[in-house]
């Protein structure tokens, strides 16, 4: 969307925020005058955590072609899947390296301390595997599989204000009274990444059209990452398993397990009432909703659907990498049930960023030329981790 065609609403908004926030916020009273409950950022509207683009229908009911025999239908499906496989293979790193038309590699950007923020990966959480450190301590690792993924689009920071889906201002008005800093400071741009290529017959033509512009087969998942301009990747770029190294600390953002409709005792850890001693129908209730007959304030903790929200597990080291099944073994637990998507990115925690400055990761992503001689073994372990086929040797 060019700046000329779209109205300059967001830029005015951003400027207004920077200069005189109190004039714009007259509609929303100051949070400080309310109790703590209104400061909670859990007020949501129905499409808050909808995957973007939520304005494009993704799935389409499969057409039932009565003219096709079952054998032909299966043949056509195999033909479609083979087309997807070929499209993925042709856009892979190996194909680019082997192509006779390959251009000399452009100068790769350098890691700039306190500036660079790389793209992340989309992963599929599989389960949990326990492992042990070399000092005998147990550690639980989350097994995450990295599917085929390609870069779809790059939106530079100056275009964020004009980017269609970011112009919806209601979420910020309802929850925080200020726009987020990644939008106002314009240090980072938006990187769209598509993951898990699949049979095009699953999807609508509109959804497939999003990928056509980048020359990619349609994929199930589109994710956004906030990336600095020096680490920007152009459409079609390949993201792989070795984007993260063993020892790198990552943030994993995923949707938590949906626990269904829960009462206040489960959802908000309220006390409830006494189980006995004459308590009449007051065992698991909220009690009072407001004080002195006053109105119930926005954000009052009440029963409702628990879970199913995006949460981040911060600063988790990658302890092991398996190249056969394309697995990352990340220390600790990540949100979400098995077979759910997760976003994995370089951690935003300051101590991790400082350690990355000392030991910069492959910028802007891993390429074949970064591989060590002889390739990677099937399993790469963190030096502190004890593989199961080695005995434990404790120091005396």
């Amino acid at each position, binding site marked *: 969307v060019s700046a000329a065609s779209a109205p300059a609403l967001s830029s005015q908004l951003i400027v207004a925020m920077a200069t005189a926030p109190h004039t714009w916020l007259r509609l929303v009273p100051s949070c400080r005058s309310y109790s703590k409950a209104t400061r909670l950022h859990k007020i949501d509207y*129905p*499409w808050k*955590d*909808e*995957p973007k*683009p*939520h*304005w494009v*229908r993704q799935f389409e009911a499969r057409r039932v072609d009565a003219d096709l025999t079952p054998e032909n239908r299966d043949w056509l499906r195999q033909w479609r*899947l083979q087309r*997807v*496989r070929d499209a*993925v293979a042709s856009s892979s790193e190996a194909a680019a390296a082997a192509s006779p038309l390959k251009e000399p590699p452009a100068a790769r950007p350098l890691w700039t301390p306190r500036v660079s923020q790389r793209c992340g990966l989309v992963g*599929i959480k*599989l*389960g*949990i*595997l*326990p492992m*042990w450190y070399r000092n*005998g301590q*147990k550690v639980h690792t989350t*097994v995450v*599989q990295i*599917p*085929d993924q390609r870069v779809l689009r790059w939106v530079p920071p100056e275009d964020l204000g004009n980017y*269609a*889906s970011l*112009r*919806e201002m*209601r979420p910020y008005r309802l929850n925080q009274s200020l726009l987020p800093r990644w939008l106002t400071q314009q240090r980072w741009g938006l990187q769209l990444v598509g993951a*898990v*290529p*699949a*049979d095009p017959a699953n999807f609508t033509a509109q959804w497939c059209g999003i990928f056509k512009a980048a020359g990619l087969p349609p994929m*199930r998942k589109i994710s956004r990452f906030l990336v600095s301009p020096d680490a920007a990747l152009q459409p079609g770029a390949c993201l792989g398993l070795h984007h993260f190294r063993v020892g790198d600390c990552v943030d994993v953002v*995923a*949707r938590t397990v949906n626990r269904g409709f829960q009462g206040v005792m489960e959802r908000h850890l309220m006390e409830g009432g006494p189980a006995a001693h004459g308590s009449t129908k007051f065992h698991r209730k909220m009690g009072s909703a407001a004080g002195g007959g006053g109105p119930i304030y926005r954000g009052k903790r009440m029963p409702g659907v628990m879970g199913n929200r995006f949460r981040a597990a911060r600063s988790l080291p990658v302890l092991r990498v398996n190249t*056969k*099944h*394309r*697995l990352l073994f990340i220390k600790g637990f990540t949100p*979400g*049930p*098995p*077979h*759910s*998507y997760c976003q994995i990115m370089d951690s935003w925690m300051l101590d991790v960023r400082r350690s990355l400055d000392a030991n910069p990761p492959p910028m802007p992503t891993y390429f074949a030329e970064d591989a060590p001689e002889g390739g990677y073994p099937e399993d790469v372990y963190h030096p502190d981790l*004890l*593989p*199961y*086929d*080695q*005995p*434990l040797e*404790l120091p*005396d």
Partner: protein
Amino acid sequence: CFSCQHPARDATSAISSSWQLRPVPGLQVPLRLPSDRRPPVRRFACPASIAAASAAASPAVPPGPPLAPAGIARVYKPRLSPEAMKEFWRLSGIGPDHSRAKAADQQAEVPPEIKRLYQEALPPIVSQDYRDPIVESLHRAEMMRRRRVINIPEFHVGSILAVSVMDKHAPNKVNRFVGLCILRRHTGLFTTFTLRNMVDQVCVQIEYELYSPSIVSIQLLKLERRLDDNLLYLMDAPHSHCTIPFDMVPEPYSRNDPVPVNRERVRLNPPPWMCKWHLHGYQGIDLEHLYSYLSDKDVAKAIEFSKAYKRYDLLDQYLNRVPVPDADYAFKDIFIQHQELLQHQQQQQ
């Protein structure tokens, strides 16, 4: 139609004619009604004119992202369905490795000693949403890797074991404990077992993780099975039932023989008990002696519980068992790795 003068349809003309006055014979009525009593004029427009009118009213605006998504009632499922996972694995080629199971299919049936040795290789009994074939195969592979370092014998609940663990505070850096196995739970690398014994007239129960690298050795002193899956009722039994000497000599056993079953029935101490032992279907407790401590109501409840109605509860059986194809697959996978382990042990010798 009032806007485009299209002739009205038959239905509309029928409706409009009903408003017209019908002459009543013998009644003097005026030819026309006063205008305020006239029925309101119904104006009927054809669809074409309606569309044209609406198009003229609202100018064409490029649709931006709507304030609410089109299918707001849709449920967003951020998970891949099992079909989607299979398609993804088939397309990318990074799915679970079925080569071992295929190799085992060509051989004779998996010998029964595999099912005795590798009870924890079975997949966990949880809902299908929480099971993944790649993670289960990783568990099995790591279990076999650990068995190259340490020998884990076959044991059941009721067997007597001696376990040595690394302990930096012990004189020989190794801590040895002998006990009766009363519990064995979880699957895969999470498998744990609990040993119980008397130490200086104090009951001690220690839970060990079977695949922890701090275990130096697991020695089987007596191979035996009991009538129950767990012996937790020994906590309310006389201490003589779980007193095992630390210098017990291991009894020889043969892998080919069936596991001997100890059919003793334990007499519990008088109540109060830690748990309502009469409500769990234990066969290893002396039930007559147990019921002598209970009231008639409790005895009736216990007898009601022990009725074999669960045999007919199909859903209970389905939910509390590993599906047979999954169990077969797991044992086939383990069988091939077991043979590789034997080869590795022979090479080491």
